[in-house]
């Protein structure tokens, strides 16, 4: 009885050590297998479904006071797009900038920076939550995207708004892009921001225009927005996942 017990113990101990090494190696394999990352990815649909169910369409992200402002609003990702076309625009203080809005709309339009500034604006002090874990609080002024949508009149088939940006992310020239659905697009706090902390939006934070989608994480809020397109599907654009980081494994729905 005792001997049998000892043998079993030794076996179990070895099995435990070998097991934990196997489990770790297994996890690494699983992280690279398509079916398993698909299983893990199902949590995104669950989070999206549950959060949309819990959250009223018009629920507002928290707004703060001037006392909460971060002394310097951190810049992440691209700090200064080196694309010649962008550099030329920036050198001229964006006077030749045109925001083109098209796709599934009744009336495609183009806006100069002054034209955008002439539209009714909204100012909000909100917290920017980066997927990495940090937060910064900034005061944004810009045109609610809803004003632009009203002007271009989306077709009933439009389901997403795609933002094409000026910054190349890689030597290959792949540019940043992002997308949101119509519910977030019409939200009051969704802005095309041109001011940060009462000054023109700095280049490091996305001049001349950056998107604010306050109920999602920072990577949704594309900087250097050049073109907006309304579409009915995302799988035909770039990597097919609806954004530069989404094409690299991040969730399209970044509400958590």
């Amino acid at each position: 009885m005792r001997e049998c017990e000892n043998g079993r113990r030794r076996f179990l101990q070895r099995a435990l050590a070998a097991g934990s090494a196997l489990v770790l190696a297994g996890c690494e394999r699983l992280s690279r297998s398509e079916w398993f990352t698909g299983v893990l990815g199902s949590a995104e649909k669950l989070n999206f479904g549950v959060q949309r169910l819990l959250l009223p369409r018009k629920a507002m992200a928290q707004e703060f006071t001037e006392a909460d402002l971060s002394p310097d609003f951190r810049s992440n990702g691209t700090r200064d797009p080196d694309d010649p076309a962008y550099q030329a625009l920036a050198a001229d203080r964006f006077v030749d900038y045109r925001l083109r809005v098209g796709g599934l709309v009744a009336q495609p339009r183009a806006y100069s920076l002054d034209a955008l500034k002439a539209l009714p604006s909204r100012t909000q002090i909100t917290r920017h939550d980066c997927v990495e874990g940090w937060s910064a609080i900034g005061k944004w002024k810009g045109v609610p995207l809803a004003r632009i949508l009203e002007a271009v009149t989306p077709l009933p088939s439009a389901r997403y708004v795609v933002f094409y940006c000026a910054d190349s992310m890689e030597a290959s020239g792949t540019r940043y892009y992002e997308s949101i659905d119509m519910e977030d697009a019409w939200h009051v706090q969704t802005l095309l921001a041109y001011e940060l902390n009462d000054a023109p939006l700095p280049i490091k934070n996305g001049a001349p225009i950056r998107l604010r989608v306050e109920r999602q994480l920072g990577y949704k809020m594309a900087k250097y927005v050049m073109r907006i397109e309304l579409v009915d599907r995302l799988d035909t654009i770039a990597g097919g996942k609806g954004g530069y980081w989404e094409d690299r494994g991040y969730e399209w729905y970044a509400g958590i």
Partner: protein
Amino acid sequence: MPTSEQADGADTIVYRRHAWPIRLMHWINVVAFAVLLMSGLQIFNAFPALHWGKSSYTGEAPLLRIGARLDADGKAVGVTRIFGRDFETTGVLGVSAGADGAPTVRGFPAWITLPGEQWLAMARRWHLFFAWVLVVNGLLYLGYTLASGHLARDLLPDRADWRGFGQSLKDHLLFRRPAGEAERRYNVLQKLAYLAVIFVLFPLVVVMGLAMSPALNALLPGWVDVVGGRQSARTLHFVLAWMLVAFVFIHVFELVVSGFWNKLRAMVTGRYRLEGDRDA
């Protein structure tokens, strides 16, 4: 506790200590917590600092920062700063062996993160999936423990437990373990530890996780300020996770000193061997 039992030798009784739903949920929780801890540390590595307040850029220094600096020879040195004091932590925190074995600048080392290499997107996938596993499993456990009477019968301390509090504390400090029939019941410190883990630490760590969601912040704008703000919630999420790790260590230690294989078997097959009366 369940009472189906059989005699096994002279003074030894084998009985079913844990019902199968408890055993199953215990092991699901072990897997989910391990994945959440390791993927959580990988997520932490993307911004290896902890702040207090509404944002990370309030002008205040972080409470904790894990970083690296170059020494005179140009070699990377891991530096962990806690409450303004620096500690050299090369090899574990700040600088540790990467996939190829070479020193790499990273917060927590590869052997405790999931995935091992720096990979935030994949860590989030593991974390957000197993968070659901943990929460659903936890809710099922709560339902079962209430419906089956497990909570009232085995976990809530009764009058006798409270009276024996001092004795139980002394027994623990002297590593004295109960023998015979007393082994069938959880002691009062054990009960309180389990209750704290089930009803305080796990719910709080989940809520502090949800507090970091920008969408859920809009549910009731400002609710996260109850704990000091989003960055405070992130700090608490981290601290609570390590408190749970501390519990795991104590839990396993107590198993080791009180009959590891017997208790482990009881949580796997349910069978627990109760030796006859003997000197403790």
